[in-house]
């Protein structure tokens, strides 16, 4: 696998909501030594159907093989892959910061305003900032805030919807018949 052909792909997997499936799916990546950049799992638009969104850095030949292996799992309904231009995506970051800084460092207030971040909660000891957007935006905010000291920081996996329609509902209907 030449590194030049690698790019970030998001894999969207529609599955039955079953215990153990996460194991099966992650094992497919593990066996082939593919590092998962981020992983998110949640209910999908269809009742009883879960959706995994997995981001990996890989080339197209191999992502196709991976999709084949994923779809082969009995409880996987359908898997798709997209490059980042084909999807709308967001990630979310949470920052825990000492409350006193909010008043002592006016620059922090500017950062919050300019970045469209949101204050989730404030108490005597700390306040929590939430910022959603592209990964670079979250990282940028981290860099700005880290000068003042961050007590805790965490970032979510990527969540995504495609620009194109994914015909999962009609597919499911055909499966039911």
């Amino acid at each position, binding site marked *: 696998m030449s590194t030049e052909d690698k790019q970030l792909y998001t894999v969207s997997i529609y599955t039955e*909501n079953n215990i153990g499936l996460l194991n099966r799916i992650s094992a497919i990546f593990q066996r082939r030594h593919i590092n998962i950049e981020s992983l998110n799992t949640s209910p999908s638009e269809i009742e009883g159907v879960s959706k995994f969104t997995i981001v990996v850095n890989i080339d197209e030949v191999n992502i196709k093989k991976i999709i084949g292996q994923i779809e082969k799992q*009995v409880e996987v309904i359908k898997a798709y892959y997209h490059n980042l231009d084909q999807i709308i995506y967001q990630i979310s970051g949470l920052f825990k910061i000492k409350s006193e800084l909010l008043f002592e460092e006016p620059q922090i207030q500017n950062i919050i305003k300019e970045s469209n971040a949101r204050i989730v909660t404030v108490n005597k000891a700390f306040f929590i900032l939430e910022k959603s957007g592209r990964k670079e935006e979250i990282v940028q905010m981290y860099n700005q805030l880290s000068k003042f000291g961050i007590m805790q920081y965490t970032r979510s996996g990527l969540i995504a919807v495609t620009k194109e329609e994914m015909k999962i509902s009609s597919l499911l209907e055909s499966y039911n018949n």
Partner: protein
Amino acid sequence: METQTIKSQGKTNKATERISGSEAIVRCLIEEGVDILYGYPGGAIMPVYDELYKYQGKIHHVLTRHEQGATHSAQGYARISGKVGVAIATSGPGATNLITGIADAQIDSTPMVCITGQVASHLLGSDAFQETDIVGISTPVTKWNCQITKAEDIPIVMAKAFYIAKSGRPGPVLVDITKDAQFEEFDFAYEKCTHVRSYNPVPTTDIIKVKEAADLINAAKKPLIVWGQGVILGKAEEEFKAVVEKSGIPAAWTILGASAIPTSHPLNVGMVGMHGNYAPNVLTNECDLLIAIGMRFDDRVTGSLSTYAKQAKVIHFEIDPAEIDKNVKSDVAVLGDAKKSLEELLPFLEEKSHTDWHQKFKDLYQIEYDKVIKNDLYPTKEGLTMAEVLKEINIKSEGKAAIVTDVGQHQMIACRYADFNVSKSNITSGGLGTMGFGLPAAIGAKMAAPDREVVSISGDGGYQMTIQELGTIFQQKAAVKVVVLNNDFLGMVRQWQQLFFDKRYASTEMVNPNFVAIAEGYYIKARKVTKREELAEAVAEMMQSKEAYFLEVCVEKEDNVFPMIPTGASVSDIRLE
């Protein structure tokens, strides 16, 4: 969470009956037509064993001497019957002992259902006595698996297990059942599973692809067919033979494809792969069209992928979409069931004979015959060869025996020289290469086909990996013919040491026990042959025996299996010496 989806799969309107979970398991097996199962008892599965005691007349439990033996016997049973093999074990060590057989069944696409007991659900995750996370452990080597903690889930999960194991590309399924679920009573009703929403086992054959394939086949000047087990699993032997005969194309087989058409068929040009025949390997890199049918381009078949059939167009007939372009890129992929696809293909094919092309196979066969085959079958040196033992078995069985092999040199020799004149005659561990497979698999094979002669052929190494199953043979009165080709070495490894490690025979020499005495210790009739003069008569005696029979043949210690494609080499660089 599990229950939700399980329940939505099938609604049942049959009358119900209040029984325990363990009885339900046995009733499910009976509903699925299981009349024989292989296993080993223990604490966490005892309620099921108690029910098996009650249902003795309906379902026969075979006590193997090790859980690995139970899986291999179930595999042997499944491979020869085409039905689902069943193995059963207790939790913890019982369950982990199944793993080798499960992994073997997974890679060789063998339908199998394994049932394991599990500690009570309130103990799950507490490192309780004999608790292992068998669902986690078996995940990478099962087609599907599931843990049951409530008795009411048993019928639906069992039905799903059998359906998944045998449909589409078959494989092993594991169902783990907690002890409390085995005791719990519930209203039992059974309905077979015919559909799982997220699972499409057999892709529909696309007629446009079939036509594209036919056009390529009709236009080809030097086409070659390589078929695999997909033909046998798809019960497509007849359709396959018709396609081969009408198109006149030379057809070669992978190790698991063996016997789909008889060895003696004029268009059967032999085995491909590492120890396959010279002609089909060399000509893979000369053909203009490679037609792969129900095979998956395993690296033991292709050698180096960068040179494999590069000049040829490739057609791939395959049931599993994940196999398409996995190793070899195809020009036309025909997805679907082999029987259906070949049936659809036949009318589009032109009748051809490809005489000049066939002549090339004959010429290369002659080279292989002069350099290898002649010496293997009609040796002039004193020591016995493995091949001449096979030759005798062919003669005495008229090529109708089911040959069950272990793994090593004897396996390659058996596949090269046994006559396979009946389908499902080569039962061997192809994908995993599991030593210890042969003897227990032969037990299962014999029980599935009591009317067939079943000959197990092992090396002295692999035989000792599951030698305890002689006890099962004795207890079950399974009339298996057991042949050990004894070269006092782990022969195949020794061959590699000789060729690639300067003859440094590190830990491959075996000091062996008195095999005849061991067999006799299990009350099995036994004989040892050391001289050529005794061979024919001994094989005849074995084949005439109505009961199990053990035959040890002491063969040449340092013989090698040729031809051979060294790892990483191109198939056309196959060595004859």
